């Protein structure tokens, strides 16, 4: 069983500080980590590989330093890391990112399952996983909390909903995004760390992927960030007291004032 895990390197969010003037993240001196939800994706891939031998390829798009995230994934048990890295991919939104990653997955070729974390904890969009499946035209199951059964050409999973869960069967190849309830990620082993240090990371740019130039990077991104701001703090509400009729009259008065 060949598995592709898509991961993202993000700043450690417990240490994030915002520049109050520009409203952007202060990246200097902040440690980069693998998006925590992606750790569950990596772990699930390793557990599946332990049952169904095959290859785990970890894929990420990012700057050259994102290579460290791939090496960490290899130290945990992944076999190979591919970094999609090119200046022309900079500024990609979730649409362009999922388009670019799907291009890389086409180049990888053979796979049975793609696993993503449910969302990245910096952007919190939860769109890249589903986007990839749409670009590849394969089924997707989001918010998976348990892989119940895997067969050669299909799998059955439990999907976590706000109230209860759904059991979904899907043909393979398919893409799933996973929630943290699915497993408890392991720590690396010393042997794994040594292996990851020596592992060769494949780097693919636009030249290797040959993607539609209009669909990548900033110009391929329909999302436009118009303004970033810190929402004003909510001021406390007002509690009206007294008899119902009194309160109603007071309330009507307040509404009137509000309109004027």
């Amino acid at each position, binding site marked *: 069983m060949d598995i592709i895990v898509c991961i993202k390197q993000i700043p450690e969010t417990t240490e994030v500080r915002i520049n109050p003037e520009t409203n952007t993240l202060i990246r200097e001196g902040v440690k980069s980590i693998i998006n925590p939800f992606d750790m569950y994706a990596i772990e699930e891939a390793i557990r599946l590989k332990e049952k169904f031998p095959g290859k785990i390829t970890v894929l990420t798009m990012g700057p050259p330093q994102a290579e460290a995230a791939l090496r960490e994934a290899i130290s945990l048990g992944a076999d190979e890391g591919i970094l999609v890295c090119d200046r022309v991919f900079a500024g990609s939104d979730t649409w362009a990112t999922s388009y670019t990653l799907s291009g890389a997955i086409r180049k990888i070729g053979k796979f049975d399952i793609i696993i993503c974390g449910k969302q990245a904890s910096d952007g919190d969009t939860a769109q890249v996983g589903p986007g990839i499946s749409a670009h590849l035209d394969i089924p997707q199951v989001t918010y998976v909390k348990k892989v119940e059964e895997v067969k050669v050409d299909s799998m059955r999973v439990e999907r976590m909903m706000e109230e209860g869960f759904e059991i979904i069967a899907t043909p393979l190849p398919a893409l799933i995004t996973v929630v943290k309830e699915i497993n408890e990620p392991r*720590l*690396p*082993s*010393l042997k794994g*760390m*040594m292996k990851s*240090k020596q592992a060769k990371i494949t780097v693919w740019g636009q030249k290797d992927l040959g993607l539609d130039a209009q669909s990548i990077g900033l110009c391929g991104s329909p999302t436009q960030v118009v303004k970033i701001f810190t929402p004003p703090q909510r001021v406390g509400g007002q509690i009206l007291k007294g008899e119902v009729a009194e309160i109603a009259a007071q309330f009507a008065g307040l509404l009137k004032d509000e309109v004027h």
Partner: protein
Amino acid sequence: MDYLLSDEQKMVKELSHKIAEEKIRPVAAKYDQTEEYPWDIIKVIADAGLFGLFIPEEYGGMSVGVLNLCLATEELSRACGGIAVCYAASALGTFPIVLFGNDEQKKKYLPGLASGKKVAAFAITEPEAGSDASAIKTTAKKEGDYYILNGLKHFITNGGDAETYVVIAMTDKSKGARGASAFIVEKGTPGFTFGKKEDKFGIRASSTRELIFTDCKIPKENLLAREGMGFIVTMKTFDMSRPGVAAQALGIAQGALELAVKYAKERQQFGKSISSFQGIQWMIADMATEVEAARGLVYATARMVDAGIKDVSKESAMSKMFASDVAMKVAVDALQIFGGYGYMKDYPIEKYVRDAKITQIYEGTNQIQRNIIALHIIKEMAK
């Protein structure tokens, strides 16, 4: 400070640090309270591959030496001296087999110990044979293809939980210290049972039990080295393992120091954080300097062992004695910085005082270490 560690050593340190912070620190107080053996953490350490650091590669280990063992023990001890000693005591029980085992013994026992699937223990201490190891009464009498063990060992770390024991017993009482021999004894051997589990002041996550041998019949193939080599096995084992105890003490000291500095920065008195007071600052400066000095000595000794230098008894004793004295002092000072809160079990610091104390006592009291050091120096001067 830069310790000029290799990439591999940095990896061991980083991995052990991760285990300590993510897995051990959250459960340290629980195990201290319940005194359960921390099997779940042992499994994490085993899966990480840290049990085999000093064991030769051909027997399933990593062959990366004693400094790496010290780095791992130090980092684990930063979070819990009790859990770390379960790990370090297994190394103590494994060293005799690494140092003196024949190929068959190594093949039989080391892979399981290197993978951490089994833990080991070393048993020399008896109720009346502590510092005076020559007073041991446990006997091993040869009968045909077997040795028959009789006697009682006590204060054995990992006792009851370990699978593999190296036991020192007298094969010839008339020869005194030269009449002792070392044996590998497996848990479950008929005639080998466990006595009471000790209720300890510190390192409570680790188990300390009596081992009872009643006509315990073990195959003669389980003799390590030769008859009469028991004390040589013990001394050489301690030379290897004392840097590990020193590293445990070092880790406890480092952990206590970090907690104290963090607390001093947070704690407000007289309108400012107590870390702004010179009295606290000087304590922190002294503690940190002593910890660095201990670290220098421990790492230097471990590097000597890894370089293959034969006689490291003096340096091993020095690092164990110094690092454990530093651990005790730093832990007590760290508690002082916590003030009244530090005395309460709601805060983690009192445990460091309790855990530190044992490092001055076991694997040779610090008084015995001073004897070893002085004897070596006097011998060197006489040359």
